[in-house]
């Protein structure tokens, strides 16, 4: 096994106690345990506190636009399916400005691992309500209490036909790492939502609060991540948040479906001029 250090570039400067530290540790653990080198990994991020991870993690990185991680990651994966393409977003990125892209990457079943770090707030912009903020929550953008009902990412993904849905918790790094590792081995789109406290701008959804509210699906008797109805039930539990591997199914990945040959990455093709073939196409215009 390689060392975690190989993927550690610099010490993060997130607020002390930020849930993102747990995600960072879990990611390094997974990267070290899987059989690939830093150059085989691309981390695509959006805009938010999570996006700083490219500056701390040793791998190829793409810190793009707010909400657009999915199409960028899809482009990378299609051009070079040999790469492990991991996207990291926040709740604003994935469920607000980038919601459309999220659902479409998911329904295409692109072979991406999508880690959505949900802190239920827009933290980098100083604490506005996000799509996962609780109804009634007072934030700087909702001084009279949020009037929006929150989005449940995993439930949305289940309805939209996701082939891998997991939810972890920043306070349980080993468990989170195991979910990310399974997600990265999944051939197709893997959503791993992470319950991740923002200790600066969200005083309600703290580590303790999450500990009181999560329920591990592994502890539900006879729970099978292959059973969609069971997954719905777990996600619909009133007052409890299901964590663990919630749902998994096999379906051909987008790369398998659309690439002429995924063993011959477009990135490694010689873009030489195939004059014979081109001439034949031109004949069609005579």
């Amino acid at each position, binding site marked *: 096994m390689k060392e975690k250090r190989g993927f550690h570039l610099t010490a993060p400067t997130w607020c002390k106690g930020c849930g993102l530290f747990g995600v960072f540790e879990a990611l390094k653990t997974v990267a070290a345990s899987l059989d690939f080198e830093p150059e085989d990994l691309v981390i695509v991020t959006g805009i938010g506190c999570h996006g700083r991870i490219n500056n701390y993690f040793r791998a190829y990185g793409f810190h*793009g636009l707010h909400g657009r991680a999915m199409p960028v990651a899809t482009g990378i994966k299609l051009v070079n399916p040999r790469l492990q393409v991991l996207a990291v977003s926040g709740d604003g990125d994935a469920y607000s400005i980038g919601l459309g892209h999220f659902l479409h990457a998911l329904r295409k079943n692109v072979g991406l691992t999508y880690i959505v770090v949900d802190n239920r707030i827009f933290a980098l912009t100083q604490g506005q309500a996000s799509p996962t903020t609780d109804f009634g929550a007072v934030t700087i953008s909702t001084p009279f209490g949020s009037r929006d009902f929150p989005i449940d990412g995993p439930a949305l993904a289940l309805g939209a036909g996701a082939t891998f849905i997991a939810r972890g918790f920043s306070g349980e790094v080993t468990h989170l790492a195991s979910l990310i590792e399974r997600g990265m081995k999944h051939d197709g789109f893997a959503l791993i939502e992470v319950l991740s406290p923002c200790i600066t701008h969200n005083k309600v959804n703290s580590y303790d609060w999450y500990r009181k509210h999560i329920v591990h699906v592994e502890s539900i008797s006879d729970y099978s991540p292959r059973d969609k109805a069971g997954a719905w039930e777990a996600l619909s539990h009133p007052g409890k948040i299901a964590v663990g591997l919630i749902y998994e199914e096999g379906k051909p990945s987008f790369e398998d479906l659309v690439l002429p040959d995924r063993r011959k990455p477009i990135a490694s093709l010689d873009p030489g001029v195939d004059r014979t073939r081109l001439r034949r196409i*031109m004949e069609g215009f005579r």
Partner: protein
Amino acid sequence: MIKDMSVMIAGKAGDGVLFTGNVLAKLLKRQGWEVATYRDFPSNIRGEDTCYTVRSSLDKIYGLGDRVDILLAFDCAAILAHLPEIAENGIVFCDGEGVTALSPEKTRGKTFHRFLLRSMAREKYGREIFKNMIALGALSYVLDLDRDLLEQIISETFLKRKGEDVVRTNIEAAAFGYEKAREMTTETERHPLTRKEDDDRILISGDEAIALGALAAGCRFFAAYPICPASEIWQALVHDMPDFGGVVVQTEDELAALNMAIGAAFAGARAMTSTSGPGASLMMEAFSMAGMAEVPVVIAHVQRMGPATGMPTKSQQGDVLQWIFGSHGEFPRIVLAPGTVGECFDMTVRAFNLVEKYQCPVILLTELDMGQNYRTSRTFDLSAVRIDRGKLVRPGELAALPGFKRYEFTPDGISPRSLPGQKNGIHVVESLEHDERGYRDEGLANRLRMMEKRMRKLDGAAVDLAPPQVWGFEKADVGFIACGSTLGAVLEAMDELREKKVASRFLQLRTLWPFPAEEVREFISRSRDVFVVEHNFAGQLATLIKSQISPCQELGNIVSASTREFTPRAIVEPVLKAVR
């Protein structure tokens, strides 16, 4: 001898006007004529007025001209709509009733034939759709077109998809139309066209030429969202891309299309997207990203009438300034404007080399008139196609470099580029301001150096850009400046002006940005009256020229906000008024 002939086919959307026009265009081309087509369509599938003009000439033509010689009208409304365009001694074939409703002064000098296409098609072949082939047969009698060629085209069109029976019935219908026309018309109404050798030419639209150019240039990733009039680029690529090992992706919107192409380009593909007005506006965000990240992505924008959804099936040059000055922040970009289908091919190939050499977004800016209409062209020269991948590093080179700097401060501002998966090439593409390795750096000194690095990338680019093309007399008082698909109208206006003893020259801009200020200044200084010709309301090209040439003499501006193609007449009249 007839040297120029325009046939207009008009009816309702769903009538098969497009099909009939396309067969006629192909037939005329195979008969050795130069062809230019023009489709005037509603943004609707069925029921509204539509027309298709096929102009053919023995001389090289780039556009439509001013005149219609023969109108084939599938209904009365089509006659009423187009009668003023019909030339003296023109012929009108009309299906159905209504001709009697026209006043004698409107119809003077024109011959009318009631030609009950629909009922004939129904009676003889059981289906109205055969009216199109009867009409083509009739036209081939009047124009004395090569009937063997017509049969050959019918066979090519139907044999694979519909089988031998359909081919046979269509050939019969064409022969029937031919005989009917012989019965109806007098010999003096015939306009026999000569036949020439159809040597090494193709009949192709601008969109198809861009698609072919992209494949030739090694484009192996294409992502787009459906939009008129750019979808034909995609449709022309989608069948052949797998054979080249590449992929075409339909995205959820244009935001995704450009972002996906950016991701693909970052990973090492020659990548492209295409769009039109509303999609281009959505792409502005990622356009800026490509500029900041220095990712080589090609964007084809086929302009249509805006603003908003505007008129999706009408052409305009209303988005010229969008890509030159558009999006947030300042970053280099290259905007190319092909004026012929041949240039659509050549400049697409060029775009893919420029984009990797200069590592900034390259825009191919055309218009619906260029994109969707067909022109004859010499077969594209594949032997001239070269691939230049710029400062893309080879894996061997990377091992030698200590700490790879993707955004290295180099004298020309262009930095080496590695691809994900390459050892020792690790870097981050960062949308935030970044240091040489791509990591976030918001320091003042770094910001200033990084801005200068990016902005100087195009300082020496002029040698690689398509210079303006000068047409016409070396010395002339009247000078035209235009770009894109107004070229045909300008060139024919110059011919008409010459007949009226007015000599003129024409500077065709082929690169809009970086702006070729030297050449334009020189051209303007050598002309007494300069007219900027453009297909928009506010004179965007003139605004661009004036912003880049200072001081600049008074420029005439011939604009048109019309939904129709620019005509030579629209240029000749204001010029004569101004210079006389």
